[in-house]
């Protein structure tokens, strides 16, 4: 009998995951000992994230590195995404500190859940194996189910988590089925193998495979909240605690996109002719429905939810472009999106006060001249989301359009452009409320430092990526 092959374990490439997991455990442990004051946990988790971010470069220069016989990869995409995840989780945690104090969320698991979720995201972003992807997705989702419902006393929060959970599980079913069919038809769960088999023509497309592809689209589509699988997003965004909403809007979405990109652009590019149309339709629908839904909203969180749906539409274009430019633009877009979203939610949190979160747009009226700096930042973020130069959002859009035009998706780009024109309407609506309406009540805003700090980071990031995007583009592209 041949010797049992020792599984080749490459810990360095797993470094961020391991580090983060360790720190997460630590948080859980320490939580038992610290009393009501959770600042220690915050500190630990931040350090953990920092460590993870650093350890992401453990592989040094010789990327890409495939390990666990091709199930796990460390490459430009994964490293950059790891950075984004760590950043977003860190920002989310910072946002939560004061918010949790105010809203009375005193459970220590909160932070560990965010960290676990981050672990899941890293796995998701750097796995090239259907099984790993599945596991990653599930880690992420389960943490999010809990996080969404973390305010146990609040019925909205419960409802959000319930909806999210049910639909999530439902979507997981589809995703799984899709993976199964893909596996069955190609005979492998490793994206690379699948790719080369399709490439070399060993296996040829058949209905089952296509069906699998569609099911995958549904699965991922749900995770990134693209039409028509977006229905959960507004409700969940509204119900979940604001920092969690921000977190959901950036990190997990980015992770899902990473997997999305990997599976479709690296795994089954051969099937592009069949999934391009599908994805294009999904993208166009997302843009339209997202914008149309947002126009009528009066609750800022719902508004942002719909706008994020429309942004998913834009980002899908990058996936459809499926070239290196596409992946780079995906990275850039997610990063700038992270800055904007956290900035905005920071301001949203600042505007809220105990017992009343002031989430209606009316609450913003007159802000412009009461708190000019705050309103100015909000304006900045809104215009950036709308894609107005010289802000991050514009450069990101420019990037994506570039990628798409390179592949000749002129019509997609034109539709996207028209949509961003529509989107201006509701982004401007926020500005209208802030500057051009009389205040309904006067503001009792306590400018809490940490949240302000997050907002500042958001502003800096938005401006930096807008005015001097050079370095980041360089990182994303090469």
């Amino acid at each position, binding site marked *: 009998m041949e010797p049992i092959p020792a599984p080749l374990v490459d810990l360095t490439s797993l470094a961020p995951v391991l580090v983060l997991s360790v720190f997460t455990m630590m948080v859980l442990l320490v939580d038992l000992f610290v009393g009501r004051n959770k600042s220690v946990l915050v500190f630990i988790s931040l350090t953990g994230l920092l460590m993870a971010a650093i350890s992401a470069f453990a592989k040094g220069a010789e990327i890409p590195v495939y390990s666990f016989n091709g199930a796990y990869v460390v490459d430009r995409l994964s490293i950059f995404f790891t950075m984004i995840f760590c950043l977003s989780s860190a920002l989310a945690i910072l946002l939560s500190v004061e918010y949790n104090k105010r809203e009375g969320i005193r459970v220590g698991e909160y932070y560990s859940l965010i960290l676990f979720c981050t672990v899941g995201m890293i796995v998701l972003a750097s796995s090239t194996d259907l099984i790993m992807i599945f596991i990653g997705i599930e880690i992420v989702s389960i943490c999010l189910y809990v996080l969404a419902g973390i305010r146990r006393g609040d019925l909205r929060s419960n409802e959000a988590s319930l909806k999210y959970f049910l639909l999530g599980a439902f979507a997981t079913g589809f995703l799984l089925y899709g993976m199964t069919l893909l596996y069955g038809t190609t005979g492998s769960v490793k994206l690379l193998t699948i790719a080369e088999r399709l490439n070399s023509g060993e296996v040829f497309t058949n209905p089952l495979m296509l069906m699998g592809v569609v099911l995958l689209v549904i699965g991922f589509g749900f995770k990134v909240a693209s039409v028509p699988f977006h229905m959960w997003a507004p409700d969940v965004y509204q119900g979940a605690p604001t920092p969690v909403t921000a977190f959901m809007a950036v990190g997990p979405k980015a992770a899902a996109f990473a997997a999305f990109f990997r599976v479709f652009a690296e795994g089954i590019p051969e099937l592009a002719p069949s999934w391009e149309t599908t994805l294009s339709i999904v993208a166009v629908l997302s843009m339209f429905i997202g914008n149309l839904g947002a126009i009528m909203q009066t609750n800022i969180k719902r508004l942002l939810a719909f706008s994020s749906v429309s942004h998913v539409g834009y980002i899908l274009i990058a996936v459809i472009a499926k070239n290196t430019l596409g992946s780079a633009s995906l990275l850039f877009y997610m990063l700038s999106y992270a800055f904007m979203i956290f900035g905005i939610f920071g301001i949203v949190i600042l505007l809220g006060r105990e017992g009343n979160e002031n989430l209606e747009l009316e609450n913003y009226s007159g802000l412009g*001249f009461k708190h000019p700096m705050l309103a100015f930042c909000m304006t900045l973020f809104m215009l950036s989301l709308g894609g*107005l130069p010289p802000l991050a959002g514009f450069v990101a859009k420019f990037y994506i359009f570039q990628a798409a035009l390179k592949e000749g998706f002129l019509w997609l780009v034109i539709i996207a452009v028209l949509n961003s024109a529509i989107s*201006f*309407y509701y982004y*401007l609506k926020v500005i209208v409320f802030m500057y051009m309406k009389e205040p309904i009540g006067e503001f009792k805003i306590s400018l809490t430092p940490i949240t302000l700090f997050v907002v500042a980071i958001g502003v800096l990031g938005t401006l930096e990526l807008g005015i001097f995007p*050079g370095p980041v583009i360089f990182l994303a592209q090469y």
Partner: protein
Amino acid sequence: MFLTFVTFLPLIGAALLAFVPDEKTETIKQAALGIAVADFLLSLVFYQEFDMHSHKMQFEFMVPWIEAWGINYHVGLDGISLLLYILTTFLTAVSILASWEVKKHTKYYMISMLALSTGMLGVFIALDFFMFYVFWEFQLVPMYIIIGVWGGPRRLYAAVKFFIYTAVGSLLMLVGIIWMYLELHQQTGTYSTDILFMTDNLKMALEVQIWLFLAFFLAFAIKVPMFPFHTWLPDAHVEAPTAGSIILAGVLLKMGTYGFLRFNLPLFPAASYSLFPYVCWLAVIGIVYGALVAMVQEDLKKLVAYSSVSHLGFVMLGIFAFNHQGLSGALLQNINHGISTSALFLMVGMIYDRRHTRLIKEFGGLSKIIPVFAIYFMIVTLSSIGLPGMNGFIGEFLVLIGMFQTDVVFAMIGTSGVIFAACYMLWMFQRVMFLEVTNPENEKLEDMNLREKILMVPMVILIFWIGLYPAPFTKTFDASIEHLVSHVNKHSGIKHEEEGGAHHAAVKGKATVAQLLTTGTSETTVLVKE
């Protein structure tokens, strides 16, 4: 570098103003005015230093901005942009002085004004598509804020309409820009969004040119605004505060025509040639239509707004005459319109400050009560009508004589605009200034104060100066126009074998007229000879 400094000076000023406490309105106003005036004076230096004999870019400055994409920060002035640049600084100063009475949120008003000025200046100096687009979109925001916050009753509607209408157009232009950017890479292997580089090295087939032309055309035509895309203008003008209207009419509209001169003609000469009949039709329709509609307006500002539609039609006509007279006429008309219409808006604003209404029927017999105002208003009105000896005439004359050599029909229709101009302007003047004083509220209007005189005097001086001795203005852009004309003719001449629809159209237009009158005349001439 100095150019950059002058361009960004207002923005810096705005940033500094942000730190002045809100209560100190007087200080803020003075500071803002100081900055604007300083900027204007500094911009005059460019006129001083400008080499009138070269069509090349001057005061050029270039630093890499986004190497990864081959995007540079590249600025410069040439004959086409120089005057517009100075006009912008000038009008900024004027409009800040004009809005001295703004009570609400003065600080933020001034900040937006200064920011706006930088945005506009940037548009005129940008020599890189990316940069151009950045400034082009950037200046929307302050304008939007100015209209939306300090505007009239329907300001929200007007502001949002202004913003989105313009955005739609420019976003399609963005697509065009990216397309050309990639195409350039295809052809030359270098990634660059440099306008000059692209103009020299990008070769495109006719139909491609036509598509791109249309993409750009939409953006600029909305800005100009040309006939079917003009409806945002009246709303914006009516709702905007006086200074807003001044800037809007004086500078923002010029960005459109500037865009045509800087991009459409040099980049897509063949398309320009083959599409020129359609553009000209829109232009002449705009001229007549704007004039007719202006005639029946009840609101002074609306009237002036529609008159702008008509005047800008002349400019477009001049641009698409493809010859020296037409182009220089168009450029001069840009400046003239900037001055006359701004002056008109100023004076309307003055009346508005006194009476808080702009409805013509509210007035009448004012020239008895406020004679000085009446004199200035008459001068401005006549210059807007295009009375010879005043600025308006030179521009229109050059435009029309230029167009006449390209196509008779358009020139004739355009010239008829001269008649209508007289109709609506004089009728308005009569109803406002002449006749008995019917409305008792007008009895006790006080005449222009010193500030208002200070505002108007330079305007009037310019009106007559350009009207009687335009050489100092025309000579700045002669060289550039020569170059542009030759460039366009050369590059479209190449294409003439393949197409020539343009010339056919032109010739046809001429032929029709000729035939009309020949068939009429020839045999009658025979009759007479016997």
